[in-house]
């Protein structure tokens, strides 16, 4: 897998751009560990100060430094996205592999359920969850909820790969030469599945972070822990735009947009690399 990354980094412009954006974002998140201010205290600096030498990105109406607050916010947001992506990969892998390998009625039942989750608009359901859980809706709980709702699209993808792998010749060769099912799965099939799992994980992160930001902005989420969404929420509560405190909104938005675009570029360039057809199309750029 590392060879793939090295190749992509060297030759694919989109991957480089995405990697650059994501490194900036991760660097910001890492800085949170050396922040001079704790994330949950307020009124530690003069409020409503525009960006200057000592407060690089300005301060909020709650007397917090935007820059350092942002490092915590992006760290929590990223961790949230990672958590959801990880958990939903597990579900998607289980469902997809089971449906693809077993076939028959197992496949049909799983796919009916899968398509149901694909169609149902999740946002109203999440709102419903918030409505009944209110303040007990913590960030980890939301992550679990979203993971248990957001696996449908990728499960179908994994299933189609499993189905095609099952009928490939090298699988039959493996069986005939006495490999156990576990060996076949891990050694033969996993290298095909892993890149897809990885790029769908990136897309999933985009989805979950986007949804979390939206929920937080509406106040439908735990707004005490700093996340990008909660920062925007508080900015709205203090009518930052109208009051002219644009830096409170602009910088979180800019950082999160960087995250989204970066993840997307990474996922797209990986997909292009994996898909043999687009590879062939990419080879046309040869001249002598």
């Amino acid at each position, binding site marked *: 897998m590392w060879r793939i990354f090295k*190749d992509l980094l*060297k*030759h*694919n412009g989109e991957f480089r751009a995405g990697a650059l954006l994501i490194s900036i974002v991760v660097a910001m998140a890492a800085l949170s560990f050396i922040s001079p201010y704790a994330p949950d205290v307020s009124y530690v600096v003069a409020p409503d100060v525009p960006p200057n030498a000592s407060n690089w990105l300005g301060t909020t109406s709650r007397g917090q430094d935007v820059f350092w607050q942002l490092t915590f916010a992006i760290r929590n947001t990223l961790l949230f996205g990672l958590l959801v992506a990880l958990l939903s990969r597990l579900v998607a892998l289980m469902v997809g592999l089971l449906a693809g390998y077993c076939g028959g009625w197992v496949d049909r039942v799983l796919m009916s359920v899968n398509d149901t989750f694909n169609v149902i608009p999740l946002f109203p359901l999440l709102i419903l969850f918030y409505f009944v859980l209110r303040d007990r809706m913590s960030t980890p709980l939301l992550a679990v909820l979203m993971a248990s709702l957001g696996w449908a699209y990728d499960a179908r993808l994994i299933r189609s790969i499993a189905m095609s792998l099952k009928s490939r010749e090298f699988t039959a060769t493996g069986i005939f030469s006495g490999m156990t099912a576990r060996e076949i799965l891990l050694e033969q099939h996993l290298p095909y599945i892993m890149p897809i799992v990885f790029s769908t994980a990136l897309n999933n992160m985009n989805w979950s972070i986007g949804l979390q930001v939206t929920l937080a902005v509406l106040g439908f989420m735990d707004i005490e822990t700093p996340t990008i969404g909660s920062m925007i929420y508080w900015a709205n509560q203090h009518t930052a735009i109208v009051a002219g405190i644009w830096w409170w909104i602009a910088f979180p938005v800019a950082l999160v947009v960087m995250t989204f675009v970066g993840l997307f570029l990474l996922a797209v360039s990986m997909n292009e690399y994996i898909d043999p057809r687009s*590879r062939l199309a*990419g*080879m*046309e*750029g*040869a*001249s*002598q």
Partner: protein
Amino acid sequence: MNTAVLQVEDLRAYFRTRYFGVKREVRAVDGVTFEVRADEIYGLAGESSSGKTTLVKAIAGLVKPPLQLVDGAARFSFLPGVRTLATASPDVVRAVRWSRLSYIMQGSMSVLNPLRRIRSTFDDFARDHIAGSAAEFERAVLSHLGKVRLDSSVLDAYPHELSGGMRQRVTIALATICNPQFVIADEPTTALDVIVQREVLGMIRQLQQEIGSSVLFVTHDLGVHAALTDRLGIMYGGRLVEEAPTAQLLREPRHPYTRHLIASLPRIGTQERRDGLPGGPPNLADPATGCRFHPRCPIAMDVCRTVAPDLRPSGDDHRVACHAEGAGP
């Protein structure tokens, strides 16, 4: 007097790729010269990766990256002044497409638009080239379909509703309806069973005789060549190694590769062992110096390793590219 409808001169077409820092040049067609005369069926034979499909694609002007036309010419008698179709202006080329030059593609499974009825495909391909009203066009199509023994119900069908043999016959009808002067047929019967194959070959021969067109017929199956073609060219490693009237070639092959090809054909009645050629097919990305065949040739000499033999006349209308065969009378 037989004039050449197609004249190919030292045609070279390579696949050039550059991806993720790896540059590759595959010399699929490396200097091919031959001609196809009026009213004849010229066969091209060779194993896979001999370059025959790339050759006919280059002749037909189907040169898309990563394939590049590097050198040479492929002149048609009905397009004087044009070196190759790929480098000519699109308007000039479109004027002859289908009306003078048609193509029967390999793989009848997928050459027809799956979402259009056969009638629409005929319309797309041939309507512009056949004068007359829509009704006259339809009558012409129906009568032509009759020649390949398909009836009018085919017109309203979608490709997936027809059998493989029917689809192949549709493509043959499509390719011949405008009475083209030159037809390129690339493995048109490979995917069919022998019975349908026989029928289809018969149709091709019949149509060719009726219209008087020239046909460039590509297939690896020597049996088909024996049954259908007038002259036969053998390709190996991107080059023509031998060419002669078919019957003569099959009787007296003069190139070691051709000899081996013919000797490997199964014959009813004999049960002798057939030897395979040592070595593997040539690597066109890194071709051997000298004669492409020398690594596997049973009579290779020192000169074969360094100097590539030209295609030289050797006997009646017979050309061979081999140092062991001197220039004949």
